[in-house]
């Protein structure tokens, strides 16, 4: 029997309304007990004095690039980067090569994760075959194989009839539908948010409306079908209002926001720096304000990173040729603390729920809690220690982060998966 006691921390578990100084005892990979002065005789001890001890953080939107793009990332390297970011569970989008649109690919991902990954990996299946937006993928058999949601992330389903059918099918399979909301006709050729900056730089714009019209359409279809519908990486203030409206009508509509969308605007981009190029694009102060408000008032349910590795040579091109996407794992907690907690916008327990209980509920994962008997996934982080992000030291295979050199106040200190310490600061 292996035993680990995490001693002396402040335990925050929103799923049980716990926020107090306590020890956490872990036995054979499961949470055994939360209590004061737990006897650690004969156990391994993790000293968490001065630190927050939370259920393991879940990143419900990531790209691991395997199979097919192993020069960018693999399930192994991505999972190590996730662990270094304090995440214990990650949900990988299906835009691999081949696309995860059938059970064979799902099995491959899970098998590879079992062999190589240091954190839990949950695959998300495609909505349509090859994510081409036309014919439904093998959703039910992927569900049996272990997918936790469906999405054609990166390739929004443009055909309203197809997404309607997908929603109906997903509902019967009890899967949420995650949409990358972007009307491709409106965004065609766009490289950054359409506004003063894009006009100055002579870059084609991605209008806010390209996101808004698809969120609006999908909310109406979610009402029609009764599906559980989730807006990926919400970035527009208008889309925010529509999600709030859907929630007020009692629809099963949820949303996630990325750290970069609540931390940066398009004005922060040094001219033509492709480490600031992603979809949806960085928008305006008004949008960032709306997202922070949405996180604070519950309109947004989860923080997800949209970790999207691209190797240097792909990002070292003319801006318009560079692929979209940035790394996300290792800067997520630091940015959440900086922009949400230290700024006084949301309390710590609420911040923890955005990374744990909420994504677990959206995806029906048996994670994100420290209830007795639950898998012993823990994220341990500090609130005050100063550190500087050095992307060159990332376990990821890629280096495309706009936060290289950023100074943080507080961040991840240790990551525990099924009772094993898989990453620790300066470890």
């Amino acid at each position, binding site marked *: 029997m292996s035993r680990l006691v995490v001693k002396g921390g402040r335990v925050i578990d929103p799923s049980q309304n716990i926020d107090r100084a306590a020890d956490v005892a872990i036995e054979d990979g499961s949470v055994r007990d939360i209590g004061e002065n737990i006897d650690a005789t004969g156990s391994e001890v993790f000293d968490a004095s001065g630190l927050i001890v939370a259920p393991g953080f879940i990143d419900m939107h990531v790209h691991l690039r395997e199979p097919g793009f192993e020069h960018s990332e693999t399930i192994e390297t991505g999972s190590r980067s996730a662990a270094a970011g304090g995440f214990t569970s990650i949900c990988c989008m299906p835009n691999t090569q081949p696309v995860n649109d059938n059970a064979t690919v799902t099995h491959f991902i899970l098998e590879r994760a079992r062999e190589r990954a240091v954190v839990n990996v949950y695959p998300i299946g495609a909505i349509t075959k090859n994510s081409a937006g036309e014919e439904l993928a093998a959703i039910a058999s992927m569900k049996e194989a272990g997918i936790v949601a469906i999405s054609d992330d990166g390739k929004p389903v443009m055909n309203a009839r197809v997404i309607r059918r997908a929603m109906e099918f997903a509902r019967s399979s009890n899967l949420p539908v995650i949409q990358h909301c972007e009307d491709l006709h409106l965004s065609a050729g766009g490289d950054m948010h359409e506004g*003063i900056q894009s006009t*100055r730089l*002579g*870059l084609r714009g991605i209008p806010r409306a390209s996101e808004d019209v698809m969120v609006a359409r999908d909310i109406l279809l979610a009402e029609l079908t009764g599906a559980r519908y989730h807006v990926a990486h919400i970035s527009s203030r208008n889309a925010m209002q529509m999600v709030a409206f859907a929630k007020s009508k009692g629809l099963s509509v949820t949303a996630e926001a990325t750290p970069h969308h609540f931390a940066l605007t398009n004005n922060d981009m040094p001219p*033509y720096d492709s480490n600031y190029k992603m979809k949806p694009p960085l928008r305006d102060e008004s949008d960032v304000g709306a997202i922070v408000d949405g996180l604070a008032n519950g309109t947004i349910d989860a923080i997800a990173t949209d970790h999207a590795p691209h190797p240097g040579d792909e990002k070292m*091109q*003319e801006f318009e040729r560079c692929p979209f996407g940035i790394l996300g794992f290792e800067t997520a907690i630091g940015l959440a603390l900086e922009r949400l907690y230290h700024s006084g916008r949301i309390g710590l327990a609420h911040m923890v729920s955005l990374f744990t209980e909420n994504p677990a509920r959206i995806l029906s994962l048996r994670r994100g809690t420290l209830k007795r008997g639950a898998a012993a996934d823990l994220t341990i982080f500090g609130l005050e220690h100063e550190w500087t992000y050095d992307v060159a030291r990332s376990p990821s295979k890629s280096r495309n982060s706009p936060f290289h050199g950023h100074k943080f106040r507080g961040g991840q200190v240790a990551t525990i998966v099924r009772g094993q310490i898989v990453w620790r600061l300066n470890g």
Partner: protein
Amino acid sequence: MQKGLLGIAELSRGEIEEILSRARDFQPPPRQSFKRFDTLRGRMIVNVFFEASTRTRTSFEIAAKRLGADTLSITASGSSVSKGESLVDTLNTLGAMRPDAIVMRHSASGAPQFLSRYLPIPIVNAGDGTHEHPTQALLDARTILDRRATLEGLRIAIIGDIAHSRVARSNIYLLSKFGVSIVLCGPASLLPRDMAAIAPGVELTTDMRKAIRDADVIMMLRVQLERQNEASFPSNEYFQFFGLRPEHVQLAKPNVIVMHPGPINRGREISSEVADSQRSAILNQVENGIAVRMAVLEKVLAP
């Protein structure tokens, strides 16, 4: 000061004035040919044109030669770009040949900015995508100043496909720094509302007559059909509503200057009567192009 010349936006008014005033020294006296200088003797300038251009490339070549520099011009179709070499690799290769400056044109906005972060060699932007064309704005300003004492207080209309025009952007940045009141005019789908906010003193209109009324200068833009991947306006209506004709010129100041960066599309954005009229400064612009580029190359390569 940037090490080359990437855009007008980053230049100060003083730096612009310095170039414009030096360009005067390089203008040939009337009915005489250009003088040769040997300021840049022994220096090597490579012109890399990733996008077709005859007049700008030739103008830079002549400017370099008149200063005594050696030049070499490479166009994309004749280079390794067509063999799939990346921009960085192409320029690194050229960089290894140790030219003293690179003059480049590229269809991607920001391509010279991107390269200047990695190459130690000064880059002169000869037009990047829909972003900037700094030497065009400088030669336009030189042309206006040949006929007006100052830019201050002038009313200048820029008419055409504003959205896709690097000439418009560079001119807006330059003229705005000198307190010009700038009116942008074009079909609404080619006239982004955000243009009014990119520099002080800019207003927008879709009414050609309003734009031209009392203008000191009318700058017509080339209709860039090659930059449009969709129909942003009904093209058969363009000349009717946005083509410059003699009756428009009547609305402007009597001594209005009509300009066009060329090459002109007669009957599309400008009528032949106007293009060939006394008011037209189009050929002076070409002449000033060489003088201004000489001033720029000298400044960039000055020891």
